[in-house]
């Protein structure tokens, strides 16, 4: 069990990793990655019941699926800093012959990744399949998944959401990163989705809201509440309110940094706001 300061220090280091990774190759998705840094740190350090090492089937441990695969920088950073692969490998992000592809994949055998994602809207179905496999295997561990809010515009999600409730898949906690941004602008401008809480509840899911999804204590409390609601015949959705670009002031509250890398000066600015804590890769 880490204390909050340790988790915050790790989050600061993860922010540095994200900025340096996308800067080096002048590509990648820093905005959503930064917005979810606290969530990933809390998830991998505190929430997931994980075994040592990695095997694809993941029997006897909680599993996590990232559906909005473009926030790979935060996923890779936290996986590396949670011991799945050497931290130095973050240096190879998006380079030729790397296991750290632009979007996560099992194809290169990177430990910690169980499905390719990036083409949006597929992750919830996969997570539900893994949840059903857990039930067949009498494995009481949980499935966690993360989805973008804009991603919910993909219709396959709603097939999956309908399936989950209809089949009482109650060993899954699907989190939606509610940052209200997507590539072309605010979600409300691109395609207004109304109340996601009302929608999930209408589909007979249990919904837990985390008002400040960039606060580690709030995430831990909210996710504990979500976990307490599993196993009761309903799938559980967490609406995680985050700020895109969190922790780097000029990247916050805008979609501008969805898929754009900082230049040298912007990198220096961003890093200065997040002093090194655990050591850069």
């Amino acid at each position, binding site marked *: 069990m880490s204390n909050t300061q340790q988790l915050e220090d790790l989050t600061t280091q993860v922010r540095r990793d994200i900025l340096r990774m996308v800067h080096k190759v002048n590509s990648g998705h820093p905005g959503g990655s930064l917005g979810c840094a606290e969530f990933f740190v809390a998830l991998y350090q505190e929430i997931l019941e994980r075994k040592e090492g990695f095997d*694809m*089937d*993941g*029997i006897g441990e909680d*599993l996590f*699926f990232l559906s909005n695969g473009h926030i790979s920088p935060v996923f890779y950073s936290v996986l590396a800093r949670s011991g799945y692969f050497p931290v130095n490998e973050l240096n190879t992000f998006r380079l030729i012959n790397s296991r750290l592809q632009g979007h996560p*994949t*099992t*194809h290169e055998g990177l430990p910690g990744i*169980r*499905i*390719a*994602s*990036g*083409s949006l*809207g*597929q*992750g*919830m*179905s*996969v*997570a*539900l*399949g*893994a*949840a*059903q*496999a*857990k039930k*067949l*295997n009498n*494995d009481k561990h949980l499935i966690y998944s993360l989805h973008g809010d804009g991603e919910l515009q993909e*219709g*396959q999600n709603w*097939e*999956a959401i*309908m*399936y989950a409730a*209809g*089949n009482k898949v109650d060993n899954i906690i699907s989190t939606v990163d509610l940052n209200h941004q997507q590539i072309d602008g605010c979600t409300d401008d691109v395609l207004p989705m109304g109340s996601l809480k009302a929608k999930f509840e209408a589909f007979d899911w249990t919904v837990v809201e985390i008002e400040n999804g960039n606060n580690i204590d709030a995430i831990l409390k909210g996710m504990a509440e979500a976990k307490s609601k599993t196993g009761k015949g309903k799938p559980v959705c967490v609406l995680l309110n985050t700020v895109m670009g969190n922790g780097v002031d000029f990247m916050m509250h805008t979609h501008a940094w969805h898929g754009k890398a900082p230049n040298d000066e912007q990198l220096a600015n961003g890093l200065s706001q997040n002093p090194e804590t655990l050591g850069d890769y």
Partner: protein
Amino acid sequence: MKTYTNTGNKDTRSGFGAGLTELGKTNENVVALCADLIGSLKMDDFKKNHPERFFQVGIAEANMIGLAAGLTIGGKIPFTGTFANFSTGRVYDQIRQSVAYSNKNVKICASHAGLTLGEDGATHQILEDIGLMKMLPGMTVINPCDYNQTKAATIAIAEHEGPVYLRFGRPSVANFTAEDQKFEIGKALHLVDGADVTIVATGHLVWEALEAAKTLNEKGISAEVINIHTIKPLDDAAILKSVGKTGCIVTAEEHNHLGGLGESVSRVLTTNHPVPQEFVATNDTFGESGTPAQLMDKYGLNAEAIVKAAEKVIKRK
């Protein structure tokens, strides 16, 4: 020439259902998913015998493919069942990313392929699925020819680690392969020896190829017939060995000539041993409503069409 006996018409989809029933008894990791077509896919027995391992997903094929990919994580061997059109074109990106690129052990089992779906018409008669599936890296593509072979193939693919597309059909057709056959993925089956022309056929066209060989034999033409049940990986050696003897080839399939078995055979020939080839396939067209026999006749996918193609290709030698 060697001849084969039809032991009684049966539909290939029932062969799939029988294979799945067998797998239910022998392999506890096999699970099945269906998108509201249990009766059409003949999955009733599996559902009845193993309700805990059967997933009715409703009319939601994209979700079905994702669920299947997820079920492999934890060691299950999922068999998805719906029509070929909804098994491929409708869910191409789901198969591409969540199954093929992720190298998941999913068996995509597709009934009602091709024109012989019949009266429902072109919306449901996919003639592009072999092409779609064979283009995916790592995907195995199988189109067995009759009931017995479809049953054997269904059982065999459970033992194969990796994604598989298994294609079969709706109508009752000749059942002529051995009931106790061992199905070997990627191994072409040499059915009839011949010297003048090679006929390679897949799926429902294999029986038509045998009928064509009889007609050709009566005309004094010796046709070699090969059953290509596995389109990918293709048995290059069997094809090359045969054309080395006959010097020309007819490919026959219930599929568009663009992207099907014929084009795969062309690649093998042009890169190894170019010989004249004729295609018995649809000519870049959609189908239409009609009985299976009427459609196969109108679109030139029967024994008569194979005979004509064989006579034509021999002249081109």
